[in-house]
């Protein structure tokens, strides 16, 4: 019974990777962003960024559009509907994990014992 209460849905592993999370965080705060902004804001190298964008596009989380303006190729990236709901879900899951950790810590300190850092129990979710 107690174990069931402590179960928290695991975060999406595709999003949980730092580089991809940074990209999705930027995209969740705007309608769309170009490649240069993503490169500058996240600080990722161009190669890494392009690989991560391809992964996210293949997963259906972002939509990439390319257009030629002033004789230059411009890549614009935006979150797909699914991507937006996934990132919102991810932050909710992370908040739930944080809350659970804090409540465990409070419970331990209220019992007068030294708090032992333990990771939250995660259920196995399909990647």
């Amino acid at each position, binding site marked *: 019974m107690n174990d069931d209460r402590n179960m928290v849905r695991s975060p999406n592993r595709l999003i949980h990777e*730092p*580089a991809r*999370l*940074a990209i999705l*965080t*930027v995209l*969740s*705060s*705007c*309608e*769309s*962003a*170009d*490649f*240069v*902004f*993503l*490169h*500058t*804001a*996240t*600080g*990722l*190298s*161009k*190669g*890494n*960024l*392009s*690989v991560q*964008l391809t992964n996210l596009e293949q997963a259906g989380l972002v939509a990439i559009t390319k257009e030629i303006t002033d004789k*230059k*190729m411009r*890549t614009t990236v935006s979150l797909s509907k699914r991507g937006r709901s996934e990132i919102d879900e991810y932050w909710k899951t992370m908040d739930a994990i944080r809350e659970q950790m804090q409540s465990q810590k409070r419970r331990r300190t209220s019992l007068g014992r030294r708090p032992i850092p333990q990771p939250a129990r995660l259920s196995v979710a399909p990647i």
Partner: protein
Amino acid sequence: MEACASADAGSALNAERLKYVTEHFHQLQGLTWVALGAALLFQQSVLGDLLPFPRGLTDLIFLALSLACYTALFRYAPRYYRGRFGWIEPRYGRPDYKRLRFLFKRRVFFLKLFAFFLLVFLSVLLVLRLLGRPVGHYADSIIGDFHSMIPAHPVKFSPALCWSVCLCACFRTNPQKEDLYRTYFLASGALAWAFVALYPIWHPEAMHPTLWKFLNSGWIGLSLIAWGLYNYMTLVRLMPKRIETHDAEGADYE
């Protein structure tokens, strides 16, 4: 490659910073403010006294400089930001129920406030109509004291007031930890302009130099330049350091 990867991992994850930079990207494009401020500053006639040239020539020079600033504002600043920092389309969120309720409550509050002041005004008017003469007899001496406290020369408080309003707005919007220096910046600006405004009360001779006249007449331009420079530095500070790589993987995305 390993160094690049570790730098990537370190620079990528700071969700609050990323959100702040993305949401305030257009506001933090300070160089456009600097160009506008400089253009307004060059239109001040007081500036002509600073150069030892004939009046017509100085006017022509400052007009050319002002036009150059407007060109930078409308042509080069957007191009610079697009090339250096990229471009985003901001998110226009629909006002939710909580926001609408807050707006309605605020409107009701201001209506109540207006009604209160109107009532006070009408009451004072009525009292003065009935008891004007006896009150005026006693009030003359008090008003005389107040009148002696007003300085003989005009004091320009609008710059300090404007900066104070911005400071209050900054407090009201609950400053985020990513941009805590903004509060100190606005507070120091308000203090500096208050000092400029009040200085001639103790030193009346300070009103005559060109510098004091220039500070008073060009306060909008100077304030815009200061705000622009601060916003630009904030944007540069919040962006992670660029990692220069010579990989060809990202070339097709640029």
